[in-house]
């Protein structure tokens, strides 16, 4: 039962979400809800071809169409030096195509008109002459000598973007040379898309009298977007006001800057009126930041009893036409080197090759911390392949290989220092809660009857919370985060943070953190995010970084306010500062608990009754640079039954035991886990964005790219263990992405486990009924 936000000492309590009343009642305000006087509407013309020479564009008819105010092409933008823009990954991306097009649905021209319908109609009047070129769809073909070079704008005449390595090659080879057991597996993580309910969009509003640009945009990182925009456009940063209003889901999709944003801004600068651009669903899926698309090969070296020794991973990463991944600068494959997971490997070596293809650009972290989902899925799948090979139960194999509690802080073979964890306890709890031994008995009985039941385990370790700033930056901007707390005379607080929530519940959880530090209730604290004119600078919300970074900043900022409050309390209590104690709700004179003042008393005094020489007011700002990342982890177990006639997989049970350190609001954590599991379920069973041989995107809509409904979604069971992060100010680790990171492997492991009596050792996602049915038919189980 959730509690009201007026609860005292709110930290760790399930209080109701402060943001829910407006969302439930339809009172949220999203970008498309905003209507400004004189606002025009923009639509984009997109390429039908995946790869083609752009021979000629004739916009005359469109320019004369009803309501049309402006038509932009790549040539127009080139005159402004804006035909290309930098991506967050340090590549360049075409804003509107010049010379050639490199993926189907690439942006070719923009039309601005009085209504959206007029803009869309005028698009049809633009005549574009293309000369189709052969498309590069297969990332393995992309780097062969026969493949055409896609990016002739680059100095390097190759489709290779980067080669990246982590770990110790020689040490790993040595381990493999002597290993009694080696298992190998090719594993594909399909191209998926965050596909938020609200697609991307913006309103650019340039005021020619004040020279100020107000940019309303669906942004997970408004400050970073302002800086990028300033650098690209030359507009002074203080004359750009980015407002990221309510966001209908982001999941990483709203981290990059997209061509439509730049076009809307150019249009507003040219016309001096607000210009709105809102994507369609097809535009969102077919052209904005996709995720994954990793072709991985894994080798595991082990003892005969299944104790792991070494890990070797080689991956080809399909980034599409432009490297528009949103990874920290030094990490072109994100934090993929967390691939040793929860296991005590002696040595590991990881290689990733990023390549260009004629597909949509991207490589964003879809509800995961920079390629951690790919890594987790790979190691959790590989552990099951190993378990099958050595004939050891999947749970037992994991228990034999876990990094032990005493080993923390643990230095991984690829260089990460894990902060804390108690993996064996978490898995044991999951095994007990789900009744693992009973389930294995039931499975044995069913197998004897020829029925297909599977149990899948995933005991993942995440790596979240980038910073620290010595290692992590995006385009040179260090990945710290910030909070600013202002206590008003009546003890009410407005706090602003550098992050931007999109469903995570910051307005509640950050209010709880601050209220706890200040002895107030969450109701007393109003959280504001997403306005660059008012909020302190921060890098935004993605990669489960808000609580590890801004959450830390909020707690430390609260303590900074409390320091001054303590001085004021001493003044009010008429005792020395050293004689003032804080019990979490009030300041009192040491030894005299009845002589006490609350934060509200102190706040009033900060404006009305100050000691001699003290600066008035009660506020603070804190920029928190975390000393390390945090490492949330969990043990997930899926139980599935497979229909032999249709290949349909029914997820009978799914238990997620998460350890995300100290929990601020258990209800919100549970909600985050439900959402992430649902997305993980979709990835495992439903989602893929395939391209045909000509580079046509075959799933650019919700008919072909499936999003689960309540009817599809299994019932989720959740539980927790709590191993605090030793370095985080409140011991929290971040959780939003764990369920997406950890669950796909549990689902796939369960299906493979069910099919293992047939000799199946691996299947690639998505495990659609058709794919499972084909396997059943190959093995003579069904006709």
């Amino acid at each position, binding site marked *: 039962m959730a509690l009201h936000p007026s609860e005292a000492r709110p930290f760790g309590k399930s209080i109701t979400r402060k943001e829910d009343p407006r969302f439930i009642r339809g009172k949220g305000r999203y970008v498309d809800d905003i209507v400004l006087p004189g606002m025009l509407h923009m639509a984009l013309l997109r*390429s*039908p*071809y995946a790869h083609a020479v752009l021979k000629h564009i004739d916009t005359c008819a469109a320019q004369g169409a009803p309501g049309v105010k402006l038509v932009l092409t790549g040539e127009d933008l080139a005159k402004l030096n804006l035909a290309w823009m930098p991506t967050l990954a340090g590549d360049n991306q075409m804003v509107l195509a010049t010379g050639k097009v490199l993926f*189907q649905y690439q942006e070719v021209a923009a039309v601005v008109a009085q209504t959206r319908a007029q803009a869309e109609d005028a698009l*049809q009047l633009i005549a574009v002459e293309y000369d*189709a070129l052969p498309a590069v769809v297969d990332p393995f073909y992309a780097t062969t000598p026969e493949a055409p070079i896609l990016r002739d704008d680059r100095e390097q005449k190759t489709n290779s973007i980067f080669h990246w390595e982590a770990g110790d090659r020689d040490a790993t080879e040595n381990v493999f040379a002597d290993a009694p057991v080696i298992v190998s597996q090719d594993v594909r993580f399909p191209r998926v898309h965050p596909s938020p309910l609200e697609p991307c969009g913006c309103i650019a509003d340039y005021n020619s009298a004040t020279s100020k640009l107000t940019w309303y945009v669906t942004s997970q990182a408004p400050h970073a977007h302002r800086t990028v925009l300033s650098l690209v456009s030359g507009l002074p940063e203080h004359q750009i006001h980015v407002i990221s209003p309510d966001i209908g889901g982001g999941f990483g999709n709203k981290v990059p800057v997209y061509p439509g944003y730049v076009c809307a801004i150019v249009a507003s600068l040219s016309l001096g009126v607000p210009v709105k651009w809102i994507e369609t669903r097809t535009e969102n899926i077919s052209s904005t930041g996709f995720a994954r698309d990793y072709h991985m090969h894994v080798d595991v070296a082990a003892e005969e009893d299944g104790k792991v020794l070494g890990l070797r991973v080689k991956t080809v990463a399909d980034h599409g036409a432009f490297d528009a991944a949103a990874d920290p600068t030094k990490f072109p494959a994100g934090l993929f080197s967390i691939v040793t997971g929860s296991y005590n490997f002696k040595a590991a070596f990881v290689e990733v090759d990023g390549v260009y293809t004629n597909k949509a650009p991207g490589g964003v972290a879809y509800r995961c911390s920079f390629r951690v989902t790919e890594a987790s899925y790979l190691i959790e799948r590989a552990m099951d392949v190993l378990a099958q090979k050595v004939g050891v139960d999947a749970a037992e194999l994991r228990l034999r290989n876990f990094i032990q509690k005493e080993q923390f802080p643990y230095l991984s073979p690829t260089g990460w220092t894990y902060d804390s964890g108690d993996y064996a306890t978490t898995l044991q709890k999951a095994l007990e809660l789900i009744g693992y031994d009973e389930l294995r008995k039931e499975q044995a009985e069913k197998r004897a009857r020829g029925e297909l039941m599977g149990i899948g385990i995933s005991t993942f370790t995440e790596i979240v919370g980038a910073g620290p700033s010595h290692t992590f930056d995006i385009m040179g901007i260090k990945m710290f985060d910030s909070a600013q707390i202002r206590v008003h005379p009546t003890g009410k607080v407005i706090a602003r943070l550098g992050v931007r929530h999109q469903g995570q519940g910051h307005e509640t959880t950050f209010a709880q953190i601050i209220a706890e530090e200040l002895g107030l209730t969450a109701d007393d604290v109003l959280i504001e995010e997403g306005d660059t004119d008012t909020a302190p600078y921060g890098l935004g919300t993605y990669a489960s970084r808000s609580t590890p970074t801004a959450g830390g900043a909020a707690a430390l900022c609260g303590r900074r306010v409390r320091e001054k409050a303590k001085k004021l309390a001493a003044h009010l209590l008429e005792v020395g500062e050293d004689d003032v104690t804080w019990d979490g709700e009030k300041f009192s004179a040491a030894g005299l608990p009845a002589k006490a003042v609350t934060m509200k008393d102190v706040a009033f005094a900060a404006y009305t009754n100050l000691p001699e020489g003290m600066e008035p007011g009660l506020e603070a700002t804190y920029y928190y640079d975390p000393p390390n990342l945090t490492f949330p982890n969990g043990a997930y177990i899926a139980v599935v039954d497979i229909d032999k006639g249709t290949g349909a997989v029914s997820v009978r049970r799914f238990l997620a035991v998460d350890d995300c350190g100290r929990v601020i609001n258990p209800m919100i954590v549970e909600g985050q886990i439900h959402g992430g599991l649902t997305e993980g379920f979709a990835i495992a069973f439903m989602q893929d964005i395939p391209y045909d*041989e000509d580079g*046509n995107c*075959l799933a650019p809509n919700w008919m072909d790219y499936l999003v689960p409904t309540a009817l599809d979604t299994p019932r989720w069971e959740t539980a927790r263990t709590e191993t605090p992060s030793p370095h985080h100010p409140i011991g929290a680790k971040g959780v939003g992405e764990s369920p997406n990171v950890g669950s796909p492997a549990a689902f796939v492991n369960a299906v493979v486990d069910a099919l293992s009596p047939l000799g199946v050792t691996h299947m690639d996602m998505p495990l659609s009924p058709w794919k499972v049915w084909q396997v059943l038919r190959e093995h003579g189980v069904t006709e």
Partner: protein
Amino acid sequence: MRTYQGDFTIQSARAKVWAFVIDPNQMGPCIPDLLALDVHSETEFRTLVRVGVGPIRGKFDLTSSLSVAENGRQAALVIKGGGMGSGVDMQAEMTLDDAETGTKLSWQCDVKVSGPIASIGGRLIDNEARKITEKVFANLRDALEADAAESGQSEVASSGE
């Protein structure tokens, strides 16, 4: 790319069929759902056709170019164009052979589609493309045979079909 092919027999002499298929003014109207035909030369013509594949409906503006590979027997037709943000590239080849009951017309068509019609209508496109192509040749046969009937004489025995 998709390839479609087929053959059928027209109860008409080969020379007559040939004259028909290389004449844009006669071939053009065989295209189903034709809205406009604009013949530029003996070998070049432009058509505006109504297209509907699944949820995608609208007009395609197509430029066609005819070339003779073997006079009286083999011709190729290249069709290029598109609409509604989609594109189509077709290369059709027709071969005429004398048959017992008239002329056998064999055809093969490589079709490359792009844009939403390929990605959204993709699953439906096979049937639709086959239907359209078959309709083209059905129209052609009907036109030739109607022509033959009007002229009051069948140039070949009509007992075949």
